[in-house]
């Protein structure tokens, strides 16, 4: 019923490790391109400057930005889980003092046993909309966060299924990739905001740069080439936030199905997750505590985007989550197979001619 989840666990873990490495590497390389590209343009501009004037010989911009990119990536990787939790305003459940909190802690500990992972740290997000997410770098330092709305609206079985889904993400190391991505998306968004302000304020700088190109305009073709490169360079600055968003989206859709399957494997109760998902969908307001940067971590899209309701090309491109109806349909398929199986067991136990009424 869930062979895919068990068979592919190690592959999935290896894939997530590899993807995280590539993500970090790509991030640093992008910064290097931004820096050294700028250096090259500047170098071309000051190539035939008069003696005594500044000549851009050492690529300090590239060195600086590469170092900065590496620094940000290392920082994001190290502090990603804290940052994600902090951004949602979650607080840790250390000593449960209400019945609901006690039940949550129990359910998480039960599912940790079923999934054979260490007990994660448990966090509560003060938001009335039911939702949940997991974060962390590896299973021994993982965090599971659920909203107040989830523990209030779900039955014990449903809560179990949702927590099992999150532990599925933990076990196959989805959390490492998605948390690093969330931290990087956050960093890029912050920088592009700052850069936008810088560009709007510093138009004069660009103007004087163009003038410099004009002065060396004896050879027209290189100047045009330079201009083109300059445009590409600027565009890649502006594209950075969009690219990271698209990455976040592409990374998360398929793994929701896989985590659903793992939840069914841990609880042996796919229908509980189906009913939980229906509940979560019914309350499809926005989870206001969870911002865009962490949206791809959640069990259902916290932004309540209508796009998530359908499959298709556009949805494939821009929705962070597969349509809930599809997920429920798959879980129901699993539940149906299980019911068949149990019925067969019962008939076999009762000594009835098994298979007489259950064609397989």
């Amino acid at each position, binding site marked *: 019923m869930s062979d895919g989840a068990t068979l592919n666990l190690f592959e999935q873990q290896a894939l997530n490790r590899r993807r995280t490495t590539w993500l970090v590497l790509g991030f640093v390389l992008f910064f290097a391109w931004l820096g050294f590209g700028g250096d090259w343009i500047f170098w071309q501009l000051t190539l035939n400057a008069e003696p005594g004037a500044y000549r851009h010989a050492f690529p300090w911009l590239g060195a600086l930005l590469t170092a900065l990119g590496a620094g940000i990536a290392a920082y994001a990787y190290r502090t990603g889980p804290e940052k994600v939790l902090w951004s949602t305003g979650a607080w840790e459940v250390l000593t449960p003092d209400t*019945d609901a909190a*006690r*039940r949550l802690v*129990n*359910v998480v*500990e*039960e*599912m940790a*046993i*079923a999934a*054979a992972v260490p007990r994660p740290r448990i966090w509560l997000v003060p938001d009335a909309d039911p939702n949940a997410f997991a974060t962390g770098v590896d299973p021994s330092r993982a965090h599971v966060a659920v909203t107040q709305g989830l523990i209030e609206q779900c*039955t*014990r079985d449903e809560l*179990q299924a949702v927590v099992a889904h999150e532990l599925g993400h933990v076990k196959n190391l989805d959390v490492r990739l998605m948390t690093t991505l969330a931290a990087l998306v956050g960093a890029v968004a912050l920088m592009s905001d700052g850069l936008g302000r810088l560009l709007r304020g510093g138009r004069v700088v660009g103007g004087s740069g163009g003038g410099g190109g004009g002065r060396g305009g004896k050879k027209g073709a290189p100047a045009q080439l330079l201009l083109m490169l300059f445009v590409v360079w600027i565009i890649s600055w502006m594209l950075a936030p969009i690219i990271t968003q698209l990455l976040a989206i592409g990374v998360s859709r398929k793994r929701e199905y896989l985590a659903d399957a793992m939840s069914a494997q*841990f609880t*042996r109760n796919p229908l509980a997750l189906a009913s939980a998902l229906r509940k979560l969908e019914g309350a499809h307001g926005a989870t206001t505590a969870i911002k865009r940067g962490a949206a791809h971590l959640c069990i259902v899209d916290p932004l309540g985007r209508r796009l998530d309701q359908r499959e298709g090309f556009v949805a494939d491109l821009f929705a962070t989550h597969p349509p809930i109806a599809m997920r429920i349909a798959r879980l129901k398929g699993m539940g149906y197979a299980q019911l068949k199986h149990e019925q067969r*067991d*019962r008939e076999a*136990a009762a000594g009835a001619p098994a298979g007489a009424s259950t064609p397989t």
Partner: protein
Amino acid sequence: MSGILLLAVLAIVVFWVIGAYNGLIALKNQTVNAFKQIDVQLKRRHDLIPNLVNAVKGAMEFERETLEAVIQARNQAIRVEHTGPEVMKRIGKAEDALSGALTRLLAVVEQYPQLKATGNIGQLQEELASTENRIAFARQMYNDTATQYNTKQQQFPTFLVAGLARAAVADLWELEDQAARAVPQIDLSMKRKA
């Protein structure tokens, strides 16, 4: 030339044997560990029962038999040796008896609204429900791991090194019948009215 070829084949075989052997040993240890996990959860259950009994004792003078059945079942379960042959059958029998006694006790507790109203009982019920779940999930984990181990040591070609790794087929927990499977659902206060 053929000497080198022979050496290469030999090296491959040796590496494969090492890999298969280590794989089997890893699974064996996982199976042992999964079994220990069940022990931990059973102990948790045994430790909880005195608290439950103390909490309901005063209010349930008329139900002395039910209480005593629980205490007796618990004491019997504690005495079961967790090593030796047929260990699973013995543990399973004692724990099933305990589950049955507990279910009856909790059904009786349901009939005393004033007892249920004290917060302590509600908490204990939650703890017991959780413990039952933990035991069930620990058994499930054990069965999954042991099945993997059993399959591996019987499959070709790994079964060639099974003797070397002293791999033996691990017993599985059996859920006796459908009724036994339904037993862990004792969180009466959460969903159902008695």
